[in-house]
């Protein structure tokens, strides 16, 4: 996997949201989590909201950010199981 760090824009606004919007995104997220809860499974799922603008730079940013999010989710889970250290927050 090759990451093209030079293509990612700096100062991107990354945040946690507490309001998924009560439309199809919120709906599918609840559907997934309810399905897992009913099956007695951990809710190992997250919803990522991205901008609707399809400009080339946004697509490039989006791709990189998804990859880094997946990486962060894996690391967070490994850390929780005691297999990895705390984030350095660099």
């Amino acid at each position, binding site marked *: 996997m090759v990451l093209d*760090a030079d293509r990612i824009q700096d100062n991107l606004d990354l945040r946690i949201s507490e309001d998924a919007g009560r439309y199809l995104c919120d709906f599918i997220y609840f559907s997934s989590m309810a*399905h897992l809860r009913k099956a007695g499974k951990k809710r190992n799922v997250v919803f990522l909201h991205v901008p609707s603008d399809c400009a080339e730079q946004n697509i490039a940013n989006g791709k990189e950010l998804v990859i880094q999010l997946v*990486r962060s989710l894996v690391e967070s889970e490994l850390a929780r199981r005691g297999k990895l250290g705390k984030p350095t927050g660099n």
Partner: protein
Amino acid sequence: MNYQTVRGLVPKLWGDLDNENENPAGRDEKPKIDFAVHIGMAGPKLVYSIERRAHRDGYAMKDVDGEFLRDQDRKLREGQKWVWHGEPPELLTDFDLDDVLVRWKGHSPVGFSLHSFSQSLLVWF
């Protein structure tokens, strides 16, 4: 996307969760899901948000096919058979998003080091 399609699709996406570890014969057919990321477009604002919670009620907007969800009616009709019967008003992801956010922000700067990435890649795989 419409509400009914989503309701039918979600169980298929997750596959047969009950059978995951108990069916040695079937184990090779379906990969075990470690986790899932749903991705959706919000609005034009240049913000990337990871959602901590989702709601059971309050879906008042029409979907792309112009249909309302009408879960109030459905609840009355189906009672205990309603797909979300017994679910709380909100569900939260089990991921520690505060920890994930720090890592995500840390991994997404300009000029990150290829060396540190390749070390993490070994851990990941």
